[in-house]
């Protein structure tokens, strides 16, 4: 039984190869409550929280690479994705203290993962690596469960948007689960949008909505495509998702689409 807290990504990958069944821990805000409740009783824990080279935020042109233990609050403070982009999301995400510990990478291994819809709209990918291979491979942010047993996520690669909008539906502004969310972004490679799928609870890209997002008069078409991707089960849910999509579209075209998304009841 071991508690391993490696100091570098290379030593974390070596530890992962040696103990592929060890419970991986980033900030611990999801796994520790599960351990407290007796839902997880790992023999070994591989804690990435002490990685000296794991919290870097590296901008490269219109993309940014985040290390595996970049915390949600730190990413927002550093304007890692551009000033204000994460603000609207963060208003409804966890609590201030949990945001200080929670990592963006760790969120993608959870269900539900509120960040997945944002990172999908930002053309994000998970970067995976293993000690046995020299290279890295990239996975869609919604496929964290496709990691090999000896792999770790060693970072995230995202586009920095020229404009971004995020809208969420929840019963309260804070400390309430997201019922539906839509994210839209204008990226150097073109517009992108994503929605939380009602059936799956995971983020779904909306390629059909892209031409409407580019069109200032395309709010209704955009909403229709987003609703089709989310497949909400009831008329109320369909209207709600359509309203979120229209708000995102409006923000993108009003020119104030930087992070000031309101949380809607």
């Amino acid at each position, binding site marked *: *039984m071991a*508690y391993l807290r490696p100091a570098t990504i290379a030593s974390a990958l070596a530890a992962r190869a040696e103990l592929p069944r060890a419970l991986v821990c980033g900030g*611990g805000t999801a796994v*520790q*409550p599960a351990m407290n409740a007796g839902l997880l009783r790992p*023999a070994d*824990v591989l804690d990435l929280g002490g990685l000296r080279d794991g919290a870097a935020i590296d901008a490269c042109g219109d993309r940014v690479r985040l290390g595996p233990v970049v915390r949600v609050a730190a990413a927002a403070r550093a304007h890692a994705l551009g000033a204000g982009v994460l603000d609207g999301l963060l208003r409804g995400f966890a*609590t*201030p203290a*949990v945001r200080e510990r929670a990592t963006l990478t760790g969120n993608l291994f959870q269900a539900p993962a509120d960040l997945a819809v944002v990172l999908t709209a930002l053309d994000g990918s998970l970067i995976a690596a293993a000690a046995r291979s020299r290279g890295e491979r990239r996975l869609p942010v919604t496929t964290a469960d496709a990691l090999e047993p000896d792999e770790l996520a060693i970072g995230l690669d995202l586009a920095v948007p020229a404009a971004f909008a995020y809208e969420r539906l929840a019963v309260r502004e804070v400390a309430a689960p997201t019922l539906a969310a839509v994210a839209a972004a204008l990226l150097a490679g073109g517009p992108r949008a994503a929605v939380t799928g009602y059936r799956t609870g995971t983020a779904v890209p909306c390629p059909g909505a892209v031409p409407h997002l580019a069109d200032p008069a395309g709010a209704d078409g955009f909403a229709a495509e987003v609703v089709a991707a989310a497949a909400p089960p009831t008329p109320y849910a369909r209207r709600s998702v359509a309203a979120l999509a229209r708000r995102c579209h409006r923000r993108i075209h009003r020119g104030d689409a930087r992070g000031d998304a309101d949380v809607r009841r």
Partner: protein
Amino acid sequence: MSGDDLVEVRGTLDGEPYHAEVPVWASLLDALEAAGRPLPAGCRGGQCGSCTVSLDGVPTPACVVPAGAAAGAVVETARRAALPVLVAELAAAGATQCGYCSPGLVVALSHLLSTSPSLDAPAVREALTGHLCRCTGYEAIVTATLAAAARLTS
């Protein structure tokens, strides 16, 4: 917690060295309890805030931190992290009734006052997100914190 191999956690607690041996799956909250310094614990899921400590200067629910992750860290409870002016204002405003939530929220609000002394009510409410108080209705806590901020800046 018996029957498991133990990990050793050493660090600083309220300015003194402490030491605990706990299972690998245990939290910092468990480690502090094993070290003879139990904190109020409500949910053990990071939601109620009652176990909040200052961990290397950042308010953190001890129940969401793996004990092993806190090895070598500086942990401060309300005993050491509380700003006296805040404690005085909370007492004057009647912002503590059963007191179960108080140690945790005093850590969080003392940190808020130390890092951003000129505050408004929305900032105090934001800092209270994740701190459940079943007794006071929060208004007295907000009023007391703003009064403490005013005293700190006057």
